[in-house]
């Protein structure tokens, strides 16, 4: 568990170390994608791996997201364990046919005779004017389709443990990274370990309200919890970590206790992860105990690059705290915490 170790790593180095250790452990693991072998090494997450494992196992690819996804699937059918990297989740829209129509379905439509152990890493952008096409968190698409697994680690510890598991998993895993989380630091054991599907983590205990924060919004939820303390609201914060399979049990148990659920997603609400979590919790707890719910996510618009509008586009610790305040106290109180600099967002500095 995170506390057992003293060593601190950045999320970037945790991803790099997980890949390094798994590639050393299993020669069937290969790593490819645009620019994995370039000087920037995907924010550093692939740094040194080309030198260590050679150009056959670590290679940059042409700009061909559709075919390269098929290549990953085909290589997996032949016994390899490909990791395919995309520096923007938005680019996965070019790979949807292979992901949805082939990767998710091969095991089933071939009667269980094949498996597609691929890991698709993709990154969500924020800030610095990235705008419409470099900011989407579209993982709900992959939660919708049976046959895929989806994980969105928020800490360096989980980044490593989930990636190690994802590589060993025999099903296609969509591994979602948030570029701002890349700069987080935290304890990471050097020895290899896995953080397995179907287990959420309670990141802060509380009794008044259950706050589920997905991907980067987990960070904002933990900050919001601090704001809420100042008004004597005790929030329990949960990080689902794995979105598919989703550990709804842990969330349900928390809401059974608190009676209040606020899901803060790093994506749009409509047909998103927040809709699914709310629906599942209601289905489980209806007629067992009354529950009030709230969803927060991106504004239902396209992401604007100008900071003045972008700040309104994303939920943040203050807007989350304000919404939770109303959820707990009831009504529309218009309460807003005063900004605390010690809770400032980690700034993502350009060039993006």
């Amino acid at each position, binding site marked *: 568990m995170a506390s057992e170790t003293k060593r601190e790593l950045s999320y970037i180095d945790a991803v790099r170390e997980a890949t390094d250790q798994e590639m050393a452990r299993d020669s069937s693991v290969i790593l490819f994608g645009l620019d994995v072998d370039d000087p920037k090494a995907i924010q550093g997450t692939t740094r040194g791996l080309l030198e260590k494992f050679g150009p056959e196992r670590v290679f940059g690819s042409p700009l061909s997201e*559709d075919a390269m996804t098929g290549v990953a699937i085909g290589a997996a059918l032949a016994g390899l364990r490909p990791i395919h990297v995309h520096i923007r989740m938005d680019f996965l829209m070019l790979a949807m046919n292979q992901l949805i129509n082939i990767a998710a379905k091969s095991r089933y439509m*071939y009667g269980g005779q094949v498996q597609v152990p691929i890991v698709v890493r993709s990154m969500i952008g924020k800030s610095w004017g990235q705008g419409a096409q470099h900011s989407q968190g579209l993982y709900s698409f992959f939660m919708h389709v049976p046959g895929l697994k989806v994980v969105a680690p928020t800490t360096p510890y989980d980044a490593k443990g989930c990636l190690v598991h994802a590589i060993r998993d025999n099903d296609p895993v969509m591994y979602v990274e948030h570029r701002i989380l890349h700069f987080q630091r935290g304890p990471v054991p050097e020895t290899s370990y896995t953080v397995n599907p179907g287990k959420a983590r309670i990141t802060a205990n509380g009794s008044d309200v259950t706050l589920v924060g997905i991907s980067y919004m987990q960070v904002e939820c933990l900050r919001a919890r601090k704001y809420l303390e100042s008004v004597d609201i005790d929030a329990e914060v949960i990080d689902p970590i794995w979105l598919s399979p989703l550990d709804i049990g842990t969330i349900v148990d928390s809401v059974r206790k608190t009676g209040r659920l606020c899901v803060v997603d790093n994506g749009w609400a409509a047909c998103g992860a927040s809709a699914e979590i709310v629906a599942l919790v209601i289905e489980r707890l209806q007629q067992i105990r009354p529950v009030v719910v709230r969803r927060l996510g991106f504004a239902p618009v396209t992401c604007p690059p100008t900071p003045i509008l972008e700040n309104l586009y994303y939920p943040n610790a203050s807007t989350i705290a304000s919404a939770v305040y109303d959820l707990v106290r009831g009504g529309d109180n218009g309460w807003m915490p005063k900004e605390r600099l010690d809770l400032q967002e980690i700034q993502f500095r350009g060039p993006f």
Partner: protein
Amino acid sequence: MQARFYRALYRIRRIEEEIAAVYPTDKIKSPVHLSIGQEAVSVGVCEALRPDDVVFGSYRSHALYLAKGGNLRRMIAELYGKADGCAKGKGGSMHLIDIEARVMGASAVVGTTIPQAVGFAYALKLQRKDSVVASFFGDGAVDEGVFHESLNFAALKGLPIIFVCENNRYAIHTHQSKRQKLDNICDRARAHGLPAEQIPNNDVQRIYERISQSVEQLRAGSLGPFFFECLTYRLKEHVGPNDDFQLGYRTREEAEAWVKSDPIEQLRAHLDAAERRRIEMEVEDEIKDAFAFAEQSPWPEAAELYTDVYGE
């Protein structure tokens, strides 16, 4: 050799004729995209391959599956939607697979197995195996961007793969000339740096020879890929068991030419009657056996609905 070709071609033809005959009874629970008229391509290529070589195809893969040695009983059972089907009834006729025979997949979405074949070839090379991959697709798949992306990558990496375009001139009812300005599929492959060759007229012998030579070179370690455009012709409707000349998108005359040059007829002439009859009777027995097998095979258990979504 000729006897081998004849057996392979005749067998596939007869199996599909039987499928067409049974289809109206509704016992077949899957759409059927018959290869009747196109058998020469799959046979010519697969006769030149080893059992450990790998093939990927499209929804029109009956001939490919059979030519590569796919299990007939399990194929018919799959069409019947039965538990003994090659995909336990969970694939249907468009997703035939036979792991032992290395028929590694077929897709209902045009062009989508091309990059998988490339990825498989990448793995074979990395694993230092000397098996090769053959990727089958139609002239319609050439319209898709993934065709180009796949060839570009395969050429870039010099992979042990042979691309086989079965050009029957039509995508459903739309002629190649309405989808591609030039009749130059080989040039499209050459643009990515692949050696490419067109083989006209269902020439099973020539296909066999050229593929054999290419495979030899690949096994000898020379760099791939290779590209072949095999001109062929679909005699039945795009999907289903019937003729479709009444639709008017093509003429009976156009088909006649291909019927005349049908390699099955040609080869039959060269065989002595006795051997021919032996082959044909063996095939008939095999077909009876396979359909009987499918008939008797049980339906999948209800519990099967929920299995095979994820690994254990």
